[in-house]
């Protein structure tokens, strides 16, 4: 199978100083230490671990919205550590879809317009945009709510809009940071089923962080983090340790 993500001995340290070049950092907190991970196309992978274990940091690094202190990450064959900010933005725009814990929909846009946004910034033509938005909303079962603004949608509906937004531009990879954390059991179960269905039906690669047991039950591969280190990966014998 084609490799979508390759995380090679990645570490991420955050300075506890103000980050100014005039004030050399003396103290750090290590959010991720020497983590390695390979993800192939079509996987449905959960990154699990307690709060502060480095789940979000790892997702941010894979999603090219942060850069590692050491090590390297390849996304769809591209070494992201060598990319300039503009190229990283292009990579995110074209290859990655994001689902956030707090949905992060644009409040002044309708559901359809929110889903349309990734296509808009890619410069897709209006006719094509309309078709793909309708398709994406249908795939998450929200065609009837297309013209509603986020404040009129329930939490579960908002997260489904966020999923539609993440998949509308047909990315190579969907990253979801604690997607069920703000949902009740019913909506969380629906969302899990939806993501799983999209993974199976469209072959989309999902990587999500969670400590939601309901979500982990549906996940074939679980990578566990603790204190910034990968402590287990059920796809590899004995897991990898960093």
């Amino acid at each position, binding site marked *: 199978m084609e490799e979508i993500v390759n995380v090679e001995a990645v570490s991420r340290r955050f300075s506890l100083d103000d980050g100014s070049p005039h004030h050399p950092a003396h103290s750090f907190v290590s959010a991720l230490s020497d983590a390695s991970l390979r993800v192939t196309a079509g996987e449905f992978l959960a990154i699990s671990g307690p709060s502060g274990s480095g789940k979000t940091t790892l997702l941010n690094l894979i999603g090219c919205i*942060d850069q590692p202190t050491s090590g390297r990450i390849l996304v769809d064959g591209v070494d992201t550590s060598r990319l300039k*900010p503009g190229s990283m*933005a292009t990579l995110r725009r074209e290859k990655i879809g994001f689902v956030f814990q707090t949905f992060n929909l644009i409040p002044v846009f309708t559901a359809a*317009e929110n889903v349309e946004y990734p296509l808009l910034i890619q410069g897709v033509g209006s006719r094509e945009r309309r078709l793909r938005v309708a398709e994406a909303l249908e795939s998450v079962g929200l065609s009837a709510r297309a013209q509603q603004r986020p404040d009129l949608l329930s939490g579960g509906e908002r997260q489904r809009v966020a999923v539609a937004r993440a998949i509308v531009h047909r990315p190579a990879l969907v990253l979801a940071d604690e997607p069920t954390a703000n949902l009740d059991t019913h909506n969380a179960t629906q969302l899990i089923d939806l993501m799983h269905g999209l993974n199976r039906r469209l072959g989309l690669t999902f990587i999500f962080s969670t400590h939601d047991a309901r979500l982990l039950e549906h996940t074939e591969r679980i990578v566990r983090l603790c204190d910034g280190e990968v402590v287990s990966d059920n796809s590899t014998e004995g897991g990898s340790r960093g």
Partner: protein
Amino acid sequence: MAKFLLLAFRNVFRNRRRTMMTLFMVGGGVAGLLLVGGFFAFMFWGLRESTINSGLGHMQIFTADHFNRDEVRVLDTGIDNWRQVAATAKTGEHVRGVAPRIDFYGMVSNGDKSSVFVGSAVDPAAESSLGFRTYFISGRDLDPKPGGEVEALIGVGLAKSMNVKVGDGLTLLAMTSDGALNGVDVQIVGIVNSGVAEMDARYLRITLPSAQRLLQSDRVTNLVVGLDRTENTDEVAAELAPRLRGLPQKLVLKKWIDLATYYKQVRTLFSTIFVFLGVIAFFMVLMSSVNTLLMTMFERTREIGTMLAMGTPRAWIVALFMLEATLIGILGALVGVLGGNLLGFILNHSGLHLPPPPGNTYPLAFKVLHVPSLMIGSSLLVIVSLALASILPAIRASRLRIAEALSHV
């Protein structure tokens, strides 16, 4: 692009109360500039027309010598063949009439007391046909064809100084064009107020034939040309000047603006004040908008982080913020133009007057002109001000660290 505009437009109205406050602030700046500028424009217009109609006329014709050398004797540099010159000037389009004038000076006496006067000799019929206004305290205008005694109008200050009233007599003494001393008895038929106290303390007016007899000369100092509209001055001057060059005496045509020194000084002073007010308004809008826009940016940190995470180019974020600010500027300018014109309309119908300016005796009407160029200029000023105010918040927004922005609470 349309969606991007839509996003900016909706963002403007996301926090309605704050947007309304900003619109009132921006609109207030524009309305203030329109009211002040409109009042200044009214003042300029009023001063221009009153300067012209108080006797300056739209143009004046002099001999070239008048500006090249001082007169050794009275009317030394006057116009010889003034009737021919007047006839030439009258044939021009838009010319309402031509009035000959003599400027002279001398001594005036009531028998007990003497004083210096500054005299002006006029053709009353020509003056009145040009609509030149004289403000009478008492009495009447000069008779164009007086029967017996020489008639005179004197300024209110001179009348007070000489302790005379309408119907009283005065004796004028002046040097003739030959250098001899000549005198004439005049009867006061009117006491006038020019609005300028210093002028009224010395002012005296008699008819042109009376002055020519007193000064022993057929010349005039200048010819005043009156037009149908002030706006035609340049056109008529351009047409008349070449024709005057064909006459025997070397003549010079001066437009009213060349002669209205006081008008130009007032205009320069008030234009400078207006520019200063404009600069203040610009910075007030700029500084208060920076604060509002920074607050907006801070509130939308997570949203901006989300947009950046999805791959939105940073330049788009800058453009979005600048577009939103520009939209606020446009809407604020609209509010200001509407509000300013409405307030101007109310003020124009309120009958308000300001106290007389220094040196004047008439109160100034408080009116506001609706000047399109002022509306466009003030609107552009606040729109540019808002756009500039958005640069700092826009750049800060575009430079947010995505991971930090996404975790912003």
